[in-house]
């Protein structure tokens, strides 16, 4: 839901909920084992499990900063 909320909030954000069982190759590509598994910018970052809002924001921050390098 957090990802959905962020997409609603910002024009820059797209949130896609993906059924891992229906798209197994994609899930494997991102190393999904436990769900929910949130992949940020196609693997630039990730969050495993249902994270609280501030924690997800922190991981997004880190992922985007890593992308700059």
């Amino acid at each position, binding site marked *: 839901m957090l990802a959905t909320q962020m997409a609603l909030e910002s024009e820059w954000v797209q949130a896609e909920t993906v059924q891992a069982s229906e798209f197994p190759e994609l899930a494997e590509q991102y190393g999904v084992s436990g769900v929910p598994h949130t992949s*940020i*910018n196609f693997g630039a970052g990730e969050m495993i499990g249902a994270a609280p809002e501030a924690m997800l*924001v922190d991981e997004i921050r880190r992922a985007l900063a890593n992308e700059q390098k």
Partner: protein
Amino acid sequence: MAKMLNQGIEQQVRQVLNEMVEPVEILLFTSASENCEYCEQTRELLEEIVPLSAKLSLQVHDISAAAELAEQYHVDKTPGIVLAGRQGSQTIDYGIRIAGIPAGHEFTSLIHSLVLVSRRASGLSEATRGYLKTLQKPLHLQVFVTPT
């Protein structure tokens, strides 16, 4: 053809959807090929949900026949669902997508997302909203889930 939602669930969904504020448009992209195991069921499910609120509408498109539209909405998987706002004749894309049938826990998420989109407000904290305002390029969040 047996319905997917029993009367009890239908009632509950109707009640939650009563909280909807602005109209929401659901776009479903399906593919006719055998590759899409759950396309038909997803379509049936959405066709049962939409009548439960006057503020919901549904468009169903074939991803090949409506390739340009699918590209416009960046939908590349089927069943592919877009949850958008409807304003008069305009569709407002918030970048909210679901790939795969919204079953089990994701069914509940879908219903809540419909209400969320209808509010046109994220409900996020001021801190998060402040952070999102600093974004200057796309942020793509893919949340992998399972139906159980």
